[in-house]
Each structure stands twice: as structure tokens, then as C-alpha cells.
């Protein structure tokens, strides 16, 4: 956050009236709703959330122990904003975009001290600016005036801010500048720097939303194969604790083929964020081979960091995502977990003594959630280009009960639902996405992509797998009662095929070097191999071969090793031909 620059005499200081946890009230403060204020002698950052008569209510983003009535409150006259510009990739922020590495330096301790502020991007650092326009060119808001190599992966585009008028370029520079130096001037008198600010609670303007037709390839078989997410789509991952939400989110952040990843750790564990901070710089991006951090922005507001900053971290993240979308990138945003965000709203709301809605959540919970998810989508940009934001929100339902308000309100909005299942997690079936409960409404609009990019019969093969899993689900009920051996032979065989679909295809080992990422072709071929087994086995069965003999064929257990095979094309060719040979030899 940077200090106010052009305020219109609204910044009259106030005085603290009362303090209760993160909620502080002040008198005589002349402020607008959502203005950022500095509270108390230590200058703790806060935001105006209610104005009533002479009394202003403020939520404070830092711990308030020791703060008392009578201390001053200083208004900045500006709403909570993020600093936008080169340097956001490869960064780690707290919920109000303070860079955590800079904070560590400034505070000189590993613990988060209070009252220390730092801008979201380095204002001193010089970047190599290459102009894209010439003097005399007419530019409008959103147009790109030049580029900056932000990281090895990302070319940062310097745009005319959306709230500018635009006009003809009168001066354009080239060379090394810091983010506050003017790189272009317009005949309207407006000056363009690499640095912009934008209020987080306001969506950046964009044109119309388009129907997404391209999948966000995640490299995870169950997600790409059965429940795909589109670039510009929304997904929710609800699951009880221990079901693998965070690992699933991290896998998406690591392997999905988005240009930019914004990862929000909202009210989650400190050690988990540390893992991301330590792992991401080491891991290669499967698309470019560069370090993953080069395209990643992390926002970490762990569960013990101030609750008000947890409320704002979601907005900080999505605003950063929108900024990169405006450059024409496909952005993927992961929020882990939206339940913690909702709880932060509840906590603040109850301190304000607002009338509670369902389970104590504020009545505006549904509105806030849908407002957030609606900032996702595939957009036509104001400069005529295209960009997208895909949002994946983890939900942590209390007691794993999906009927609670956050899960239910989320499900009303998102189109992909990855239901995590504690039962699967207990038997170490990962990713523990339940194939009976999950769904994706993007399937049909993404099929053409699969058919032209992967395989023409993709949708048939997928449907086949879904049918087998459905049938297994029904048969399982009978098996529970009478045992597997009491089933007719063809049903026993179906159960066997379903087992391979589950164990060899749906299961994927995130910790295995090869298996952790599965390209769409491999996803298709692996399922194809199981289908080959299915087709050949049923022919053998029809020819009178007993099911035990079919099961004992030596090539079948090798299906379980497909995921970890490095030379998978050859490996699968070999299995398929062995399967055919061995099964046909039985009759």
C-alpha cells in the first residue's frame, strides 16, 4: 500500500473510541466507506467498514493488543488498493499485499511485528522497458504501450490504466526505468508509469464474457479426464480435513497450463505455505521448463495472521489476477480456503453485532461469494484482446457436511465440483475426488477441443469409463450382501475392469516424479489400454474362458504401472499387444 497522493481534503484525523479485537471505533474521523486508515500510535493499517453518525467502525489488519481509546486514527482518503506493476511474479505477499520477504528484512525478526508497511512492488528497481507504440499513435485505456521482461517466463505488458482517457502519444521512452518514472505521455496530459494502483473491492473493467472452449489442462487424470475445468471457468473443491484439498490445489498450481498462477493461502497452515515457497522455485513449469515461481504470485495469510487481512486477501488476489488477464494472459487463481474467508467475514460481522444469517454467517455471504466467483471468466478485454481467469476455490465444510452455507452457496455458482471424499483418502486413494458425486458442466463445451487435439473418440471412451464406474457402484451394493463370488461371471469381470479404472487410472501419485503430471495424450492412452483389456477380456469370456483365468493373465497387473512409466507410449503399446496375445491364447 502506498500513501495517499491526491486526496481532496477528506483526511481529518479521528480519535479511537473503543477497541474489541480487530474491530476499532473512532470518532471525528472524516472518512468514506472502505477508506484505508492508520490506527493508533503504531499506525496499524485498517479499513473503514461502517459509518454511523460521528462514529466510524474500522477493521484492523494487524493485532490490536495494547491499543486503547484516545489514540489517533489517520485517514489516507483512499480505498484499499493493490500496487500493480512488474515485480509481482515470484513474490509472496500477506493479505494486504505487503511482501513478506521485505517485511522480514524490515522487522529483523522471523515474527510478524506490527505497524510496518511496505509497497507491493519494489519502487526502486529498474526494469528494461521496450516500447510497443510510437509517437503519434492513438491509444485507449487498456492498450499496451510497451513490455518489460518481468521473469524468464513472463513478459509484462505496460498498459494505459483503465481509468485514463487515452489519446495520442506525445512522448515514448525506451530503456531502464523504475516503476514510478514516466515512460509515456499522452496529448491529454496523462502520463503513464509502469506502476498502477487499483482498489481491490472493485473489479477491473473488461468487455463481454465469452463461453470458454479450451480446457485448463491440469495434468491430473481424474480432473482432465472426467471433470474438466475450462480456462475461464470456476471450480470448487470441498472436503473434510485430511481429504487432500491442499495437495489437490497445489497440484493444480504446479501443473495446470495457465500462463499465470495466483495462489492464495487464506487462513491455512504456515508450514504449508512454506512448502510452496520452498518447492515452487525448484520445480520446473511443464510448459516452459522455467522455475514455477516465475509465473506465480503467492498470497499467504495463515490462520494465525490477523483475521481482517484474511478477509481482504481474496480480493487482493483476484485484483492481481485481473491485472494479468488484462495483458491477455490465461490466469488461474487458487483460493485455499474460501471457508476461512467466509469465517473471517462472520467474525467481523459478529463483532459489528450485525444480525446473523444461517449458522452465524452474515446475510451477505452468498452475495460476497458470487461477486468473487463472477470476477472469473473468459473475457473480451477493453483493448480488444482476450484473457481469462479460472478460479478454483477450496471449501472446508465443518464436519465434512456439504449442506453447510459456504459449500451450498458456492455450489450454486461454480460449474465444476470436485468432491473430496474422506473415505477414499483413508484408503490412500489420491486424488480423493469422488467420481460419483463430482461433476463438470464444461464437459460438452470442451469435448471438441479434446477431439481435435487428443483423440477423435475421446468422448466415447470417457463415457465408457463413466458407465463402468456407475455399474460398479450398483454392483458394490450387491457384493456387500452376498460377496463377489456370488455374482455372474460377466459382472465379476466388470468389477475387475472398474478396479483397474480406479486403481490404475483415477489414482495418481502426486509424489512420484513421473506420475505427478499426466499429459492429456497419456490420460487418453491409459484409459484406452484399460478399455483394450475390457474388450479382449469380454471376448475371451464369451468364448468360454472362466473369469479366474482371465484375471490371472500376467499382463494385466502391469496396467497399474502405466502411470509411473516414463516411456509411456512404448509401455502402453507393449501392454496392449501382450494383453491381446495372452487373452487370445486362452481360447
Amino acid at each position, binding site marked *: 500500500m502506498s500513501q495517499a497522493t491526491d486526496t481532496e481534503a477528506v483526511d481529518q484525523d479521528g480519535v479511537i473510541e473503543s477497541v474489541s479485537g480487530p474491530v476499532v471505533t473512532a470518532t471525528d474521523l472524516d472518512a468514506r466507506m472502505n477508506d484505508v486508515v492508520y490506527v493508533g500510535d503504531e499506525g496499524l493499517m485498517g479499513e473503514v467498514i461502517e459509518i454511523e453518525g460521528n462514529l466510524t467502525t474500522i477493521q484492523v489488519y494487524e493485532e490490536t493488543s495494547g491499543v486503547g481509546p484516545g489514540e489517533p486514527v489517520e485517514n489516507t482518503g483512499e480505498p484499499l488498493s493493490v500496487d500493480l506493476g512488474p515485480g509481482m511474479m515470484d513474490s509472496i505477499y500477506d493479505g494486504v499485499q505487503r511482501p513478506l520477504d521485505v517485511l522480514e528484512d524490515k522487522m529483523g525478526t*522471523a515474527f510478524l511485528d506490527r505497524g510496518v508497511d511496505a509497497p507491493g512492488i519494489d519502487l526502486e528497481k529498474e526494469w528494461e522497458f521496450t516500447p510497443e507504440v510510437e509517437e503519434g499513435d492513438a491509444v485507449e485505456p487498456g492498450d499496451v504501450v510497451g513490455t518489460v521482461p518481468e521473469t524468464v517466463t513472463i513478459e509484462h505488458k505496460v498498459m494505459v490504466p483503465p481509468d485514463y482517457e487515452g489519446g495520442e502519444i506525445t512522448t515514448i521512452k525506451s530503456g531502464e526505468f523504475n516503476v514510478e518514472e514516466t515512460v509515456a505521455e499522452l496529448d491529454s496530459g496523462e502520463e503513464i508509469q509502469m506502476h498502477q494502483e487499483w482498489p481491490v473491492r472493485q473489479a477491473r473493467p473488461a468487455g463481454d464474457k465469452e463461453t470458454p472452449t479450451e480446457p485448463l489442462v491440469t495434468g491430473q487424470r481424474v480432473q482432465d479426464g472426467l471433470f474438466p475445468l475450462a480456462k475461464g471457468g470456476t471450480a470448487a473443491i470441498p472436503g473434510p480435513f485430511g481429504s487432500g484439498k491442499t495437495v489437490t490445489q497445489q497440484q493444480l498450481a504446479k501443473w495446470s497450463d495457465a500462463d499465470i498462477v495466483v495462489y492464495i493461502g487464506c487462513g491455512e497452515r504456515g*508450514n504449508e505455505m512454506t512448502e510452496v515457497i520452498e518447492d515452487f522455485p525448484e520445480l520446473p513449469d511443464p510448459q516452459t521448463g522455467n522455475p514455477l515461481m516465475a509465473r506465480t504470485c503467492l498470497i499467504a495469510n495463515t490462520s494465525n495472521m490477523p483475521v481482517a487481512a484474511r478477509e481482504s486477501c481474496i480480493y487482493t488476489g483476484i485484483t492481481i489476477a485481473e491485472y494479468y488477464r488484462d495483458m491477455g494472459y490465461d490466469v488461474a487463481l487458487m483460493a485455499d480456503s474460501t471457508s476461512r474467508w467466509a469465517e473471517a467475514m462472520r467474525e467481523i460481522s459478529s463483532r459489528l453485532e450485525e444480525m446473523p444469517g444461517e449458522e452465524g454467517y452474515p446475510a451477505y455471504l452468498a452475495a460476497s461469494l458470487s461477486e468473487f466467483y463472477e470476477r472469473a471468466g473468459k473475457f473480451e478485454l477493453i483493448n480488444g484482446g482476450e484473457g481469462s481467469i479460472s478460479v478454483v476455490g477450496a471449501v472446508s465444510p465443518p464436519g465434512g457436511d456439504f449442506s453447510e452455507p459456504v459449500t451450498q452457496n458456492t455450489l450454486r455458482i461454480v460449474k465444476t465440483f470436485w468432491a473430496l471424499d474422506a473415505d477414499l483418502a483413508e484408503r490412500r486413494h489420491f486424488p480423493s475426488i469422488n467420481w460419483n458425486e463430482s461433476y463438470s458442466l464444461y464437459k460438452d463445451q470442451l469435448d471438441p477441443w479434446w477431439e481435435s487435439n487428443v483423440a477423435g473418440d475421446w468422448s466415447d471412451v470417457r463415457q465408457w469409463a463413466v458407465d463402468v464406474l456407475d455399474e460398479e457402484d450398483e454392483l458394490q451394493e450387491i457384493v456387500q450382501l452376498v460377496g463377489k463370488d456370488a455374482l455372474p461371471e460377466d459382472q465379476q469381470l466388470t468389477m475387475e475392469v472398474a478396479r483397474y479404472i480406479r486403481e490404475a487410472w483415477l489414482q495418481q501419485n502426486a509424489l512420484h516424479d513421473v506420475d505427478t503430471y499426466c499429459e492429456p495424450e497419456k490420460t487418453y492412452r491409459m484409459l484406452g489400454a484399460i478399455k483394450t483389456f475390457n474388450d479382449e477380456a469380454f471376448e475371451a469370456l464369451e468364448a468360454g474362458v472362466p473369469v479366474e483365468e482371465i484375471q490371472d493373465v500376467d499382463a494385466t497387473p502391469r496396467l497399474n504401472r502405466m502411470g509411473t512409466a516414463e516411456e509411456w507410449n512404448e509401455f502402453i503399446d507393449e501392454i496392449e499387444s501382450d494383453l491381446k496375445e495372452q487373452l487370445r491364447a486362452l481360447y
Partner: protein
Amino acid sequence: MKEYQTITEISGPLVFAEVDEPVGYDEIVEIETPQGETLRGQVLESSEGIVSIQVFEGTGGIDRNASVRFLGETMKMPVTEDLLGRVLDGSGNPIDGGPEIIPDQRQDIVGEAINPFSREYPEEFIQTGVSAIDGMNTLVRGQKLPIFSGSGLPHNELALQIARQATVPEESDGDSEGDEDGSEFAVIFGAMGITAEEANEFMDDFERTGALERSVVFMNLADDPAVERQVTPRLALTTAEYLAFEKGYHVLVILTDMTNYCEALREIGAAREEVPGRRGYPGYMYTDLAQLYERAGRIEGKDGSVTQIPILTMPGDDDTHPIPDLTGYITEGQIVMDRNLNSQGIEPPVNVLPSLSRLMDDGIGEGLTREDHGDVSDQMYAAYAEGEDLRDLVNIVGREALSERDNKFLDFADRFETEFVQQGYDTNRSIEETLELGWDLLSDLPKAELNRIDEELIEEHYREDEQEAAEVEA
């Protein structure tokens, strides 16, 4: 320091007093009753002219004439290395008759959050000597791994066993300067609302094994004031952080019983007439618990570490109850005690299926424990889960109706409980022993069923002869 005699209202653990000077939020207050007793409390809400105070020792004996002193600072814990070996009450006063504590520092008990950027990811294996934990739900330094238990289950025995046996094997290689007294842990024990009898059990064990020397004990007993329970874990964790990050100790913090802590939280919430959340617990309980549990971990550039083992008894053995539920969302896994296993006499009665250690994967494997650890653990999970499923079926159709394959899984599940999990509270198994025992059991299953284990590892460890022996028997 200003003294007031302006109490206007006393309600439950809360006292309201009028003030004419501003008082800081969270500040410490001393209240002197007319009988000369001094009680301590904390500012819960501070407004112009009036403050509400939560009194740790309970409000008994306070009247309108009691005098209220604001100390002008938030609550501090006097810390020093000399605390090791001492027994303190729930507010941090010595109760062991020993000398007065001369503090090295006084630290704020509301710890500040560790900057996630400054943390070091925990990946040092702690050998607890308990197979169900080491083999299946490995604990690492800097982790917070609670024990989810129920009333009447032997969670205390397990906690004590861990406190006794926990070591970090083969500390010697590389960067072990600063902790030459090796792999032993300093133990901080924070008791909240436990009975005197339980407390004796712990103390006897500490004294018997000589563990007291490297321990600091905080005792808030069942008949001590409930409000004090809010402070006890914070004192314990402040001490732990000091020993770990200032003095380089590896600290193991045992907090018991978190359920009593949460009850106290609810009591105060109710007294303040707050809008209650689920089952009457305050809506901020997640944040409050996180502020305790997140005070575990390692910090880059510091030698020490804080590892937490909170114990909680699940009301009605229900893990969807808000206390275990919120805990599970914050901690890095959980060890779950099971009533059925307990009645079968399994010691410790750990049910590995719902148990989990989130930090296990990075703390095990080649160079840390053993190359085959991850695969063996996965395979045992899968096989035990399958055996468990089959048990339901056996009840209906009988064992004879099951295939040979199914019977093997059933046998596996039985042996897993009676040989692998069962070990008694005095057996200390090395990780080698645990894994070899695992292979003993897995070798009863056909090789082709071991689909979670790398083929090379199967070749190396699978016991061919046992399989044959089993076949001959059959």
C-alpha cells in the same frame, strides 16, 4: 499505574469498571478484593470511559469496593532456561516449592505469527518408537500433530510414551552443532482442566523416568478457574518458543486437554453475550485455536524447533464436533484413538485409517528413514482398509464364502492390529524394526497384490519363503 474503585457490574468471569483514562486492549489488570486477595485479569474490551475485564481466577470475592489496577502492559511470561525442571500453576507461578524464578526475559504471551517466509519446512523424522505413528503417520520436527481421543481412552499413556521415547536418530551427520546433547527433547507440558489424579500420573512418570529435568510443567487442574485455561497454553507456548528459538532446544509441547480449553472459551463467550457459532462455541474459535497451534514449527537460521502434541477428547467420540473439526483443519494431521481397539486390548489403540500425518511424505524415504517407507505405509493402508471392509462382509456370509484372496486380506487386517499396532507402552521400536515388521505382514499377501510398492523394493524385501509357507499351510 492508576487505581480505581469504580466497578459497576460483575457477571460470571467478567468485571466492568469505569475509567477516566484510556486503557489498552488486552492489558493486564490486578483486582484487590476487600479481603486483601489479589486477582488477575485481562481487558477484553476497552471503550471511552468503561472497560470489561475477564478475571482469570474467577470473580468470587469481588465487590463494588474492590480496587482495580491497570498495569499498562499486556500479559508477559518471565522466561529463562532455569524453568526446565520446574512445576508451575496455570498462571505461571511456581508450585514446586523451588526458588523464585529470575527471568532472563519477559515475553508477551500472545505470540506474533511467524512470517511464512521465515519458516523452514519441517522434514526431520522423529522416532517415537510407536509403530502406528512412525510407520504409518510419521511425526517430524516442527509439526503439530494432535491426539484425537475419547473419555476413558489411554491417550495420556501414549503421550507419555512419546515424550519418553521421542528422539531424532542419527543426528550426527552434518549440521548438528548447537544441539550436541543430541536428539533429546525438552518437554513442555501444559495441563488444562485435568484431574488431580491424571496430573499425578504425569508427574509420577516424569519423576520416575527423570524426564522432569528437561521439562517445564504448567498445571491448571479441573478445580482451578476455567478462565485461567485461556492463559495456560499461551504461557507454555511462549516458554517453548523461547527455549526453541532463543536457546536452541528442540521442544515437544504436550497440551492436554484442548477440549477443556475450548469449554473455557465458550464460557467466556457466553458471559460476554456474544453471538454463538456452532454448538455455542464462539465464531472466532478457529482463529483462537490457530493462534495456539500455529506456534509450532522451525525458523530458518535457528537451531531449535517447536513440535506440538495437543490432546483432545472428542465429546461422544464424534470427530465432526467443532473442537476436533476445527483442530483438524489447523493441525498437520491427527492420531486417532479407537474405542474398539482399546476394548480388544490393543496398546496403543491407534486406528490408523482416520489418522494422518500431513508432513510425513517429506520426512521419510531414502536418507531420512528408509527408501521403502512410503510405499510400505501406503500398501499397508490400502490392505488394512480392504481387510476392514471385508470384515463387514464376513459377518453376513461367513469366511468360507470368501475367496482365498479375500481371506488373506482378512488375516492381514488381524495381524496388523495384533502385531503391528499392538506393542505396549514400554516397547520402543526403531524404525527399522517397524518396517521389517511391516514386510513380515505384507509378505502374507500375494506379490501381485502389492501394487503400491515399487517392483525393485518388492524384490529386495519381500519374504518369498513366508509366502510359500503360507501356501503349504493352506
